[in-house]
């Protein structure tokens, strides 16, 4: 029956539309309608999913009426990015370009300008896609996710937010309000690498790396990989083997071999066979770390 049902043009389901003006009003609605309610941010994931009937919410809660959720600002602990910050704003923000170029680079790689003008960072993360392009950089910079509900605010490291298998750690009645990125190590360099079939494509593999150097040796090192496991992951073993070493070809060889052991691409992911993702995650990890080292040297 699905050929007669699934498309990306017609939205035949009926739902009630809510446009709350405050956080409290929002979580009230989310609490009240539970599973039947879906948060609407940019809608670039949610609307196609509704038309494709992957979800059929009875209540839509549009959070775009809460402007403070869109802020991008410097705070004592680092930088705070509101959940509603548009990918285009992150791409163009002078603050992000200066302090967290990894995020603007990753944002720039998402879809087209039209998509980036609508899509938000919160939506990108909450959509729970293993190929979300903002997930890997946020993981690589050890971001914290802020979650709000009727019982107040809490936050936890973004690595804990991804459950795997297309799920995020979000309970009923909870809303993501933003992300805090702690200060990067002094002089850190970063790079984001992505491979898709075309420029506008979602990632077949993406990698984010942050590296700092001390006396020519790798000091801080974080590598995050997307689209090659059921959820975005950190290449912990590779990070460890690189720390304290010069970024030599041999060190890189060893590191990318460890990358290959930690990714778990799935056979049923149709766009590329597991072996392809395995091989390109090595290639992209090497490229990302190499470029991050170059940036750190500058």
């Amino acid at each position: 029956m699905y050929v007669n049902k699934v498309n990306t043009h017609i939205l035949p389901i009926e739902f009630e539309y809510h446009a709350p003006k405050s956080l409290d009003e929002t979580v009230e609605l989310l609490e009240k309608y539970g599973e039947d309610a879906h948060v609407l941010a940019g809608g670039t994931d949610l609307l196609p999913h509704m038309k494709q009937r992957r979800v059929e919410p009875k209540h839509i809660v549009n959070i775009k009426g809460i402007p403070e959720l869109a802020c991008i600002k410097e705070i004592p602990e680092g930088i705070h990015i509101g959940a509603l910050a548009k990918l285009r704003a992150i791409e163009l923000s002078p603050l992000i370009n200066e302090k967290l170029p990894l995020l603007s680079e990753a944002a720039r790689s998402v879809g087209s300008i039209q998509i980036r003008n609508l899509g938000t960072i919160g939506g990108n993360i909450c959509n729970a896609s293993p190929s979300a392009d903002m997930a890997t950089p946020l993981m690589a910079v050890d971001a914290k996710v802020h979650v709000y509900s009727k019982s107040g605010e809490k936050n936890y490291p973004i690595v804990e937010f991804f459950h795997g298998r297309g799920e995020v750690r979000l309970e009923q009645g909870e809303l993501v309000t933003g992300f805090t990125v702690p200060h990067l190590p002094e002089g850190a360099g970063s790079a984001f690498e992505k491979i898709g079939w075309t420029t506008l494509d979602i990632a077949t593999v993406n990698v984010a790396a942050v590296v700092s150097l001390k006396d020519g040796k790798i000091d801080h090192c974080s590598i995050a990989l997307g689209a090659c496991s059921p959820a975005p992951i950190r290449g912990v073993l590779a990070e460890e083997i690189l720390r304290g070493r010069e970024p030599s070809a041999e060190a890189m060889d060893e590191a990318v071999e460890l990358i290959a052991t930690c990714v778990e691409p799935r056979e049923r992911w149709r766009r590329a066979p597991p072996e392809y993702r395995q091989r390109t995650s090595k290639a992209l990890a090497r490229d990302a770390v190499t470029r991050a080292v170059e940036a750190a040297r500058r």
Partner: protein
Amino acid sequence: MSSKPAFKVLGKDTPRQDGVAKVTGREIFASDMAFPNMLYGRILKSPYAHAKVKSMDVSKAEAMGAVTLTPGEIPDIKYCPRLVSVPSSTYKDWKVLAEKGHYVGEPIGAVAAESEEEAQRALESIEVDYEVLGASFDAFDSMKLGADLIHEQIYLEDDLIDVKNNIGCQLEITEGDPASLEAADYVIERTYRTNRRYHNQLETKSVLVRPEPDGGVSIWSTTQTIHNTRLLIHDIYGIPMGKIRVYKVALGGSFGSSIHVNPPVTVAVGLALKSRRPVKLCYTREEDIRDHCAYQIIFKLKLGAFKDGTLAGGQMEAYLDIGAHQIQAYPLLGCVVGWWVSLYRLPYKEYVGKAVYTNKVPCCAFRGYGNPQTTWVVETMMDELAGMIGVDPLDFRLKNFIGEGELFWGQGPTVKSIIRSCGVEEILTKGAEMVDWYNRLKPEEQTGRYRKGWGVGRGFHTSSAGAPVPSSIIDFGGAMLKMNEDGTFDYVSALMDHGCGTQDAHAKIIAEELCVPVDKVNIIRADTGTTVYDVCTHASRGVYSGGGAALKVAGKVKEQIREFAGRILDAYPHAVRIRYDEARGQAVVYAEGIEGREVTYRDVAETARQKNWGTAASVESYRQPSCPPHFTGYFVDVEVDTWTGKVKLLRVVAGADIGTVINPKLAAGQVHGGFAQGWGMTVLEDTPYDPESGDLMNGGSVANYKVPTTCDLLDLEDLTVFFADTYEPTGPFGAKGLGEGALNPVAGAIANAIQSALGVRFFQLPITPIRILEALKEKEG
């Protein structure tokens, strides 16, 4: 080389008449249109690749207020939706609504309701009982003994014929002396497999049908031919032709996918007749991607050559995996052999072509109509053969290409003509100079991550499909031109413009003939009731044939202007001359040598009106005298990343022989677009099937069908286009076609470049990053 006449209008860049509307988003396409009281239609599609509809219950949909349409309510007629060939070459296996789904997505029922959403809900309420049958997703499986027949009986013209082994039609041709091939010093024999590409035209197929009080219908639809649309609706529904008005509406791209009349049109007419209300039916992208694709062909090719670098002959078997219906499979069988044998001189040629049914989306023409596929195969093998003989692949081509004075039968064995203009040598030698072809080092065995390669590919396409004698293909058009009372002209023709600026080319041809700037010639959008027949905009015939018709009526109108002016000036009509007077903004007819003996077009028209002489006007049908090839060649440099398998374009040089260039920028745009489509064909595009669900692997999602964007190509500074200096004596002011030739050799050139980078040859398209890494692993571990 030619000595071209000096043109005033042709060869200069002029803005398109629809340009402002298009760039400001004000152009109206069928899907933008609306009428009061209009219903929205939706089509019920077979969810199985092969299943009989045992029963269909539409009662819930009707209870919801929808109008429904089931197979039994439509005249029981089998037809072919493409009406370009003569009936004796036309196989018919289509019905408006099928009683058996032959592929996932085949229309089996329909609804219309007050909104698209209501129509969708009504559609989902229809209950169907199916008997699922065995399905085949591969041409060779289909031909196996005992495979379920996809069609048991089909019509050829009016004769019912039995289908055997799922072969819909076939063609065999042998010419020349087989001893030549037997005596060859070198022989290569290989199997090649092309991809199943989706056209991905911007506008999904759409239609708006308004039933008229007189029992007729008015139709605005995505089409490349308004007259054939009328013919088919007449054939199916029996409405007298004068009561069917098919209107021209801007076309949002087609690439051959609307040569045939689209299912939304035949279905929406049924819905409109039943509901007595206007019905609009627009395919979603998911429906469109399950509606049509390019012909997928499996080739077995054998070519032989002698030590001196001449070809000895060849054998080709072409298996067309046509999907579930015939649209133009039979004529394609003829074209495939035509494309093959018109590229290079073959003293012996032996060809077997078979069109095989599978339970997949029906294939239809896609820019080049089998020529990009055939040329990829031939150009790949030409390179391989050159390597075997030890000659430069470019020299090998120069030695064997078919050119001026030689027999050409691109559009198949019934469309033969002699080549009168040919720029192949100029394209290849000039291109070679530009890339310094002969002084480049042969790519060494490269071992690093990034490897560079370069390749050449050449090809052609026909300009129209009509030879000097009648063939099995119908090919003529017509035009109307009239002079307005202010000295401007209205040009009316049935020929559709796909967005290429074809009608603007006609306006320029008319302007050139009548000595006026092009803005004096208005392109009028008309309909079947106000135009004479034009077969279809296809086969790159728009400029050559359509322009020929435009020139013919312009010539006739010019004669009448001379006649009127002669009376006014008291001069002989055949002796008066015409020039354009910038200051007056008017063309002026004058008698040579006598000052002041002159009259403007405006005054000619106004005098003719006041004196009741009539309007200077002409309406004519036109059949072009020949079927000349336009030629193209590409030199492509690539770099392959052996870690990711991604191929990057470094530089492209493209040469084209299109006769007189009418609009240089639009012509270059055709080459850019042809290259882009060829790039997608070579490295990206395919629509494989999931044998379990019987549906497309991409699930109908265009997000999973990738085509290159401008960012995936190369900077225009690195893409050089040049035009050969040629003049086609049978074309309007020396012009030929371009649209399809711009694509045909691209895949061959890119594939040869990839081969030269990696030392690996690919025999299957597309050459994806995945396939490249797999091949490298096999070669290098």
